């Protein structure tokens, strides 16, 4: 025994073993996510650096549009602190069903499978975590990342053509692109913005960050492009902005423009989604969904997988 030995010398002689089994469990978690996502053909995240631009409305309507195209669709509401997808789809108060294989997501309109934090909360209760969250947001961040990881690994999605994930807002603190990185074999991201300069500036940062992480940006959806009058149906601009120029500069397709439709907003708020394909706003989402579908077909051709 040589108590004078320095730690480096001692460690050089020793073989590390993970007897607390922490590394093994983390590795197992990753394997579970991979295994669960295997049955899903295309995973797409809907994100934006800016809050309030209509990410959830876009995600929900893209999911419905894809379902109308006879695709099997799952929708994961990743906005842990402000989950609103169940309300928009008229699914509040619905719960998850546990099976030996995992939690079964309930089925909403047009057969869409939905998973959301909202299913675990009491009506109108905010998300509060046990532990010393009052002192440091660091622990909160870790907890939330693992909650998302658990939603990916523990939901029994079965075979799906599309899984759309509605990411929370934010460009820095909660880093949606990092959340997207939790999803293996991600097909890409759809970015939602409004034609305001403020939104465009923040969204550009989010796109740049996502691209740094090698996340394919499938395109931009400009929401609230115009205001559609509920009485006469005439559309007028809501903001002064130029999403098209932004897309051109960034080399990203503008997938479509969706007007602010008061009737649309009101019905989704009430949990009575408009499913009628002849509705003009539904038609806009349908066109965008077709473009995403074509883009991903194209991506598949390029990857030699068709």
């Amino acid at each position, binding site marked *: 025994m040589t108590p004078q030995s320095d730690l480096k010398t001692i460690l050089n002689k020793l073989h590390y073993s993970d007897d607390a089994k*922490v590394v093994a469990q983390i590795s197992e978690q990753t394997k579970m996510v991979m295994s669960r996502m295997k049955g899903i053909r295309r995973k797409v995240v809907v994100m934006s650096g800016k809050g309030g631009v209509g990410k959830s409305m876009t995600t929900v309507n893209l999911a419905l549009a894809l379902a109308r195209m006879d695709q099997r669709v799952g929708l994961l509401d990743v906005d842990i602190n402000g989950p609103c997808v169940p309300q928009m789809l008229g699914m509040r108060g619905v719960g998850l069903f546990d099976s030996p294989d995992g939690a079964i997501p309930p089925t909403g309109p047009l057969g869409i499978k939905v998973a959301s934090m909202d299913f675990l909360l009491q009506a109108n209760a905010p998300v509060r975590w046990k532990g*010393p969250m009052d002192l440091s947001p660091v622990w909160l961040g870790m907890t939330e990342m693992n909650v998302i990881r658990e939603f990916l690994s*523990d939901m029994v999605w079965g075979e799906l053509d599309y899984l759309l994930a509605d990411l929370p807002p934010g460009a820095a603190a909660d880093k949606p692109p990092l959340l997207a990185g939790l999803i293996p074999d991600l097909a890409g991201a759809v970015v939602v913005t409004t034609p305001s300069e403020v939104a465009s*500036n923040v969204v550009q940062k989010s796109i740049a960050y996502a691209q740094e992480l090698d996340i394919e940006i499938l395109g931009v959806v400009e929401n609230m492009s115009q205001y559609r009058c509920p009485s006469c149906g005439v559309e007028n601009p809501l903001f002064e*902005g130029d999403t098209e120029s*932004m897309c051109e500069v960034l080399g990203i397709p503008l997938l479509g423009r969706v007007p602010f439709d008061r009737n649309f907003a009101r019905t989704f708020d009430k949990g009575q989604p408009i499913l009628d394909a002849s509705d003009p706003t539904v038609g806009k989402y349908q066109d965008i969904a077709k473009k995403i579908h074509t*883009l991903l077909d194209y991506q598949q051709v390029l990857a030699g997988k068709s």
Partner: protein
Amino acid sequence: MKFVCLKCETYMTFEKVEKPAEGSLGVFFECPSCQSRFSMVTNPGETQMVSSLGVQLGGRTVDHAPLEMTRGGLQDNVSAGKGQMAAYLNEKIQGGQPATAASAAPATGSSESGEGGGCPFSAMVAQMGLGSSGSTGTTAPTGEQLLWTPDAQEKLAKLPSFVQPMVKSSVETYARKSGFTTVTLQVMDDSKNASTEGIRWTPEAQERLDNIPDFIRPMARREIERLVKERGGSEITAEVMEEAKEKFMKFM
């Protein structure tokens, strides 16, 4: 985390975990040589860190339940856990004085201490190359200031204000890479046809690209550039586009 018995110069082995109090874990280790034992007691923050990882120290003893960490981590009522860490610090560190987030946080480095001096966190930030401005510590070579001709400046000024910085940066990057010291209208146009990969598009090839539906074009552009780069080429011509046609026939 591992512990070393300095007397025996060996890793101590993990033995078990106990929960001595709410928000605390007692993790027991034993030296396999001298059988010395000790227990590490975690504070609520450390306990939370382990809990946030969704792991159980020493491995699972019960089967995994769906969403167990999420469900187990949600508070049943408002007061549970609130102020747990502050109370802990108050009792153990602050000697009964109110423990605020500010007092528990490390002091910021003073100007005397130089970069990061006196504060372990600012020292770490400095080591990571992040300065107070948020930029990296190592100064990136900015190169010489480029001159913009009046007509090029005018063209830039006509773009929407929020895309100007990005266009300016992209044109200047191209100009520097190509050895230009002045940005002219021609340089601006050329920069549009030069990809970030340093591959040039001839006008004919560009025209062919423009025939592809706009929402597919960026992806097609990247893919064609990748193909040319793989072949060691640096220019995309109409011939290259013709070759690629078979692959992209559906869309061209």
